[in-house]
């Protein structure tokens, strides 16, 4: 004789507000938001967490992540987070930044936050483009990739080469956990979530600067369908920005989450 039990396999996380996001259909910013919300819920950090939103498409992150939030100047989120963390060392402080914000205008602040081993967590969305302003070249834009400010494709001779932030930041002695993940399919999304979890665990344990770089899509400015955009991430971005753990300090290595 057989009974059945109904379980909820998945539902919208607590810390995700009940509002329709302004992101374009299929934009993986939404996925990244959701993962952050899930991790914060699972770790029970919501009431002590202070988020720092960037200037970029995720400027309104605070409208979707239901916790205390500030909105930084373009690129300065790590400095602002530093100011907060230094006066509220017991709180959990994270920034959420795009590649223009973090790797272009904000590269000084992120390098030095890592250099100081600032005990904050950085969620870094690498979508190889400036989304909010309508598709200009980012430091992470791939060679030959067409954008509104590299209309003939990024000419590395004139516009330089894609910056690999995870690799650079891993070199800083102050960083405790620096990895790159991708959001282009379900299994990678699951791995990304684990990494975000570890990054916050690192902060809770005071192990220094933690950053998760997430390869993301921008269907709108790439002029692709959402699925085409994810395929582009897998086929074109992953080879240039290899996924992996670039810095995991011993104290974290055998941490199971």
């Amino acid at each position: 004789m057989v009974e059945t039990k109904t379980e909820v396999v998945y539902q919208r996380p607590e810390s995700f507000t009940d509002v329709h996001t302004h992101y374009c259909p299929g934009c993986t910013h939404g996925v990244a938001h959701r993962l952050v919300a899930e991790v914060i819920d699972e770790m029970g950090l919501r009431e002590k967490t202070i988020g720092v939103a960037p200037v970029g498409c995720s400027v309104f992150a605070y409208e979707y992540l239901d916790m205390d939030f500030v909105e930084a100047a373009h690129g300065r989120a790590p400095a602002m987070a530093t100011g907060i963390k230094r006066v509220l060392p017991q709180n959990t402080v994270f920034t959420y930044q795009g590649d223009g914000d973090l790797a272009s205008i904000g590269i000084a602040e992120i390098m030095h936050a890592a250099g100081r081993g600032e005990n904050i967590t950085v969620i870094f969305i690498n979508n190889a483009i400036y989304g909010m302003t309508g598709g200009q070249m980012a430091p992470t834009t791939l060679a030959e990739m067409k954008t509104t400010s590299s209309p003939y494709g990024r000419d590395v001779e004139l516009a330089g080469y894609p910056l690999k932030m995870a690799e650079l930041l891993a070199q800083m002695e102050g960083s405790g956990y620096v990895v790159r993940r991708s959001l282009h399919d379900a299994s990678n999304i699951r791995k990304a979530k684990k990494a975000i979890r570890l990054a916050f665990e690192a902060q809770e344990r005071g192990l220094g600067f933690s950053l998760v770089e997430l390869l993301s899509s921008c269907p709108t400015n790439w002029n692709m369908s959402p699925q085409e955009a994810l395929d582009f991430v897998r086929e074109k971005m992953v080879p240039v920005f290899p996924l992996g753990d670039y810095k995991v300090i011993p104290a974290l290595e055998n941490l199971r989450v």
Partner: protein
Amino acid sequence: MAVTGWIEVNELYCKGCGLCVEACPQDVLRLDMEHLTPKGYHPAQMIEETCTGCGICAVVCPDAAITVYRETPQRRSRSTVKRRA
């Protein structure tokens, strides 16, 4: 006897991006072209009963629009047996 599942798509959030449709291993999702959400999108819908409740659609959904349910059969007897062993 197969595990069965189903999903609910919240039209407040769904933007009809179709990623869940592509991701579904059972191919039981479609965008509802007959219908527009308040925001003007064609939302995702479940069109077959063979959903296993794997949750992959929800994992890829950028708008956390999907809730996934699963119905798992529970066999009392066998479990009792187990307890003996």
